[in-house]
């Protein structure tokens, strides 16, 4: 199942978040070789703050198997702060546009293996959560090596600029639409039926208070 973790329920997920930083270190620093500025064994940056929302994939045995991070694009986020030059036009910023980053799965051999259940649930969970909370688009930066597989998922993917070389890796910024019809086609492509969200806290009012 996909657990949505935000400011309102963060305290219940403290140990999972600790695992998240560790797994992110293993995946992004050790396996992918990204040069991230972080302490040894813990990958956590300035975008991991009170307003950040996490989708955690936790299996039947209670183990964390994958995750993604969501940031509001109206606030400082990765694309706007670190990669604005990947966008041909302005970096998209809107209340209905959030950014996905640090997306990984531990269950597939390939990071985005098409039939990886963890990836499927994270993707469908993103649609479910987005449709519930008026998130209509997500932006993302990913390696061009993974892009053909990302494209094949059955959603509408629009590049925001040309690919470019960052840190020795060819990457692309793109936007994905979260709407009902693509939700259906993504679920069908990935063989997911029904809701994958474990909990869906009502977040929006709290966020506004927090501002």
């Amino acid at each position, binding site marked *: 199942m996909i657990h949505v973790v935000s400011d309102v329920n963060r305290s219940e997920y403290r140990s999972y978040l600790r695992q998240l930083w560790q797994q992110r270190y293993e995946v992004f620093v050790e396996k992918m070789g990204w040069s991230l500025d972080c302490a040894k064994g813990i990958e956590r940056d300035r975008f991991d703050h009170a307003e950040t929302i996490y989708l955690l994939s936790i299996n039947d045995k209670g183990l964390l198997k994958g995750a993604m991070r969501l940031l509001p694009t109206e606030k400082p986020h990765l694309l706007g702060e670190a990669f604005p030059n990947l966008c041909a036009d302005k970096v998209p910023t809107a209340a209905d546009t959030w950014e996905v980053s640090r997306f990984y799965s531990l269950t597939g051999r390939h990071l985005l293996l098409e039939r990886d259940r963890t990836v499927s649930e994270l993707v469908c969970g993103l649609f479910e959560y987005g449709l519930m909370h008026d998130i209509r688009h997500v932006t993302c930066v990913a390696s061009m090596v993974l892009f*053909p597989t990302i*494209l094949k998922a059955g959603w509408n993917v629009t590049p925001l600029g040309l690919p470019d070389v960052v840190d020795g890796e060819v990457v692309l910024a793109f936007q994905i639409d979260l709407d009902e019809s693509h939700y259906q086609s993504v679920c069908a492509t990935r*063989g997911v039926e029904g809701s994958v969200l474990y909990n869906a806290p009502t977040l929006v009012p709290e966020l506004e208070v927090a501002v």
Partner: protein
Amino acid sequence: MNLEYFQLAMEFIESSKTIDNLDDLGRSFQNTARKLGFEHYACVSCVEFGSMPEGAVFLADYPEDWTNYYLENSYERKDRILQVSLKQHLPFNWENEIVTKGMNAQQSEIFSEAEDAGLLYGVTVPIHVVGAFPGAVNVVGENRDVDPAAEHAIHLMSVYLHDAALRLKYKNDGQVEPITKLTTRERECLEWVAAGKTDWEISAILSIAERTVHNHVESAKVKLGVHTRVQAVVKAFLSNLIHYR
């Protein structure tokens, strides 16, 4: 960022989302590729072109006599470009040393012949997608002096071209996915699952560890793209991969 190249690429990408046949798709790609300095193109799966398996794509506009000559000689079995693109994940041009180093005499001969046919400067975009044959999009022109941004545009367009070509191919052929091959053990295990046996019983029948049985069934599920044992058995039966025991 080169805005002009990005806009050109986007024109093709948007059209690739709505075009409903392969011919128009190829033409639209070629029109844009020409504006970026590449006269000819080919979008292919790395398979034998003489006996194309289902789920493979072949979409090309090369000089006609060259295409015929290439196919008659089954050059895809020897072609250095296809060989290199199987191992690469990112675009490369044909003068890159990953192409030129380790090329055998016959492969250089094919290159010279291609040059004689007017195929001078080429760029290949290898495309590896889970659940599809390895693919390659080649663009070829006469001008070596190509802007790196133009090659980035070609890279992006190629991924969309291949994706749309696969989608249209399945739509027109009315197929869902390429048929998966199961190993003998995976097949045996699934047949016993279909016969109602537990992993422990199957392990006794086949004289292998219970854990191994579990792994065979799991791997069959992955190959079949399903999540439960029942789905695996049904799909394998319908695809004639297993038979009633």
